[in-house]
């Protein structure tokens, strides 16, 4: 190829998160773990959370899936760190899409999977710590 432009399937942001994923791995003594799969495409995503004082202290992922699935989980864990459970429960895949500077239409479902993995991890935490949500709910209705 003669020209020097780099042609990549995704935009630079997505490629960066795919090539150099943030927060990849597991949290040893996680407070909440969620693993979800997309029946249609077969991707599987696992997110583990460290939660303290109603806040997400740390988030890690492992993903079996395409480039945008990996980038989406990398970005989702980046975005969620530091948020309260309350805020985290309102997390939407659109945040991932926006933060990544867009995804191809057929790949939007990858960001949805990231949202779902995160919510599954939060649910797992809530199951073990029901008081956390009550607290959050009281906070919400205040």
């Amino acid at each position, binding site marked *: *190829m003669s020209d020097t432009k*780099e042609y*990549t*399937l995704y935009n630079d942001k997505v*490629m960066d998160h*795919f*090539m150099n*994923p943030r927060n*990849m791995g*597991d949290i040893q003594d996680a407070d909440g773990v969620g*693993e*979800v*799969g*997309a*029946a*249609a*495409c*077969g*991707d*599987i*995503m*696992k997110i583990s959370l460290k939660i303290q004082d109603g806040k997400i202290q740390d988030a890690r992922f*492992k*993903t*079996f*899936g*395409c*480039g945008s*699935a*990996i980038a989406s989980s990398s970005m989702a864990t980046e975005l969620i760190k530091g948020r309260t459970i309350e805020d985290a429960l309102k997390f939407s895949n659109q945040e991932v899409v926006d933060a990544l500077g867009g995804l191809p239409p*057929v790949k939007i479902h990858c960001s949805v*999977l990231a949202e*779902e993995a995160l*919510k*599954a991890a939060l649910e797992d935490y809530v199951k073990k710590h029901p008081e956390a949500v009550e607290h959050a709910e009281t906070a919400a209705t205040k």
Partner: protein
Amino acid sequence: MASRTVFLDHLSATPVDPRVFDAMKPYFTEVFGNPSSLHRYGLQVRDALSKAREQFAFLINAESPEEILFTSGGTEANNLAIKGIAYANQRKGNHIIIAETEHPSILESIAFLEKQGFTHSKVRVDKLGILNPDDVRNAITDKTILIAVHHVNHDIGSIQPIAEIGKIANEKGIAFFSDATASAGWVPIDVRAMGVNALSFAPHRFYGPKGVGVLYRNRKARLVSIIHGGVQENGRRAGTENVPAIVGGGLAAELARKEMPQRIEHVQKLQKRLMDGLSTKVPYLKINGPPCGPHRSPSNVSLATEFIEGEGQLLLLDHHGVCVASGGSCVSKSLKVSHVLSAIGLDHALAQGSIIMTLGKDNTESDMDYVVETMAKIVEKLRTMSPMWDEFQQGKIDSTIAPRGIGKSFTEHAAAVSGHREERSTTR
């Protein structure tokens, strides 16, 4: 960007051979006539088309250049063969037999015909992707008007027993068509020995240009046209002919035929080196399709790596300068796993980790070593990122390639976690 480029996607595209390009050049700016014109410019390009017909006939050992029909590519040639033969024989019957592992251009043409009252049977293939001619014989009914079996499979390189199927078809007097798009130029083709009545291929698979496909068809394959208009191609295919591409394709065919022994020898050597290297250096990797040898196209290497998915491999390989295709093949925008890999019974999760490499005449042995090395590296990287690899290490799930007898299968696991998701979405 990587310092080295290894192009291993020759079934998707080949660079035009410089000799071919030189032959095409005058047909753009100078010898630019329309073959339908009666003046010198038209007549001059008619001569050029005749020559190309001879070159294409030579590649596949057709009896006469008149059996060569030009289309815009492999897909159109397949559409014309399937629909054209079906419509032409509508009075005799409505049943078509195909292999289950045909290319989408065949499958979708059949799907279209189903809406018009035709029916079909799909003949199963074995674990290597090869069908049994007896199954074709058994599928024949008194309504069968067409048997279509591809020569070489586009995903896994299996070579079908065309001559044997040809015997059956001829015996029963049923038209027999073979899609040779994945074989022409790389596997010898002799339409007479194969007993086919029609056969398609496209020169852009063997260093010819895009924009032209070929449909060979002999007298026994009655054909109605699917693109209507002028009387080009004796009324079988309307529209101004793509003269430069036809001229270039013709020369590419001639070169492919002449250089075939060397090309085959070369890619077969690389194929063996690549397959052996990958099998040795990358754990939990499976080669799909038949082993190197008479039942496999010498240019195809199809593999599946466990616990990771295909697109990520493709992207990282590309980053390292290695260009390959993933399981979806030409159909990259579809999310579905290749129907070919399902047909050979490949575990769904394994099929997701599938990569197709197709070799070309300009690849080298050292390219193969580089690919093996790179592949080993990126597979390792992706596995550290995969939850499945973890769970396999922990004994929670098992390998399909080398089962240890502990843990559930990946597929069971995937179903379980996907189930979780489906629950969620219904409660939303």
